[in-house]
């Protein structure tokens, strides 16, 4: 049977996840010969933020959504995993962590009347600033905007002064000198043209949190077996695109930033990374202590996988 489904996404159409959602929707429409039509609502145009979308999808207010899972940590600590600082630095590690955690994500969504379709990573967060933030000395007393509590804890531990601001206030605060730097990805900073206020980007691969495509379970059950198969294929296409584009997007953004006269620092010393890693331990410990057995299971499986 033919159907028309709304898909909400908090971020702009041109963002990595916006594009991955487009690929997913196009593939599904093409495979179904137009029987399944997807109405994409990018840029929070339906009024939902990622935090709202968990229940909106579970309750059937939305059949489909693409959500940043960090804000879901208040529902289940599990969703903080991919935001934990310096746990997974390379794209391969981010993928490994995702593979280990996927069954757990599926289970929580299942319990909340929804289906996990696929996840794509956010480009890794780094440090925007007006100087190279490539040593613990440089971090000392630098006021940096963070986006979640583990970032706040970690940066404070590292000797910086973390400041929490709404994203809308970031540019005004940078231009007036209220803050010195921003913890965000090259992608996030580029989309806000942060180069007009900042001169350096230091790649530290702080974290690559996940964005999840999820579907209401009743909507899913109403699909025929054939349609579920198409959905799997479309999910695979959206996921493949999201992971494929990640390193390319990163290099594109670096080129754009250099073009704007910025200095991009891609190789910081291992010593610095080790110190940052150490500063991240309290945040990770806190997560581990607040999680049930799943936390230990996941971290062990992840470490085992890294050693392979």
């Amino acid at each position: 049977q033919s159907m028309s489904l709304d898909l909400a996404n908090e971020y702009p159409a041109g963002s990595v996840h916006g594009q991955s959602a487009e690929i997913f929707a196009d593939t599904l429409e093409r495979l179904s010969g137009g029987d399944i039509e997807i109405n994409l609502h990018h840029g929070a145009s339906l009024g939902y933020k990622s935090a709202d979308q968990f229940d909106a999808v579970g309750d059937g207010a939305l059949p489909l959504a693409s959500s940043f899972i960090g804000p879901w940590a208040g529902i289940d600590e599990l969703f903080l995993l991919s935001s934990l600082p310096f746990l997974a630095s390379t794209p391969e590690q981010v993928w490994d962590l995702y593979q280990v955690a996927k069954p757990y994500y599926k289970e929580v969504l299942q319990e909340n009347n929804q289906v996990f379709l696929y996840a794509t990573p956010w480009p890794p967060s780094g440090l925007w600033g007006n100087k190279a933030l490539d040593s613990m000395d440089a971090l000392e007393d630098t006021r940096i905007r963070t986006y979640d509590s583990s970032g706040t804890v970690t940066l404070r531990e590292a000797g910086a002064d973390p400041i929490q601001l709404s994203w809308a206030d970031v540019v005004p605060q940078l231009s007036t000198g209220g803050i010195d730097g921003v913890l965000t990805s090259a992608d996030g900073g580029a989309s806000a043209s942060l180069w007009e206020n900042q001169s350096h980007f230091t790649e530290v691969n702080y974290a690559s949190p996940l964005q999840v495509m999820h579907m209401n379970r009743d909507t899913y059950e109403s699909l025929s077996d054939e349609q579920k198969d198409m959905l799997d294929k479309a999910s695979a296409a959206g996921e493949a695109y999201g992971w494929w584009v990640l390193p390319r997007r990163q290099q594109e953004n670096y080129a754009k930033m250099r073009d704007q006269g910025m200095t991009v620092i891609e190789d910081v010393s291992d010593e610095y990374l080790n110190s940052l890693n150490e500063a991240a331990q309290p945040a990770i410990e806190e997560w581990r202590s607040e999680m049930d057995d799943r936390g230990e299971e996941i971290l062990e499986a992840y470490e085992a996988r890294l050693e392979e």
Partner: protein
Amino acid sequence: MRFLQIAIFGLSRGAAAIAGALLVAMVLHILLEIVLRAFFSTSTYVLDEFVGYGVAAVTFFSLGYALEHGALIRVNILLSRVHGWVRRGLEILAATGTLLLLTYFAWFFWIRFERNWERGTVSSSIAEVPIWIPEGLVLLGLLIFWLQMLAYLLRMIFGPAEQAVPYAQTYQGQDDSPATSDTRAKE
């Protein structure tokens, strides 16, 4: 009847007093944040979250109070031209429709509240505030407003006709409405 009206308006005023205190607290929290950031390079880390809860609670807690003062505006093209029973009929229609709407929303807010309570949902900030608290405040404000709307409806149905209409000012500038007498206090 009279006692009921007084009691319900008392409740609305009490809620508005809490809303006023919350507004003051919001201002103080922002000032504290500014001082912390400017002089101590630190932060309360929960400013946008707490002020957000504040503005939701302030709005919903002052609904009943604003209604009684005629501050919740309406389009008065028709209302200002009709009198007596027609006017009373329109008032009853508007109040009944709004009451149904509030019941409908309150029910679904109750479902959200219950789920957040059972699931133990907290905010994802450093403060980990249980979400049932801010959502419960919105629900509570909605229920107080529901009572005030009920009181308004009863007044429209049972009040003497000549009294029902002046009570139901739509903010068109008649001098006896609380709202207009208030905005003109300076003159």
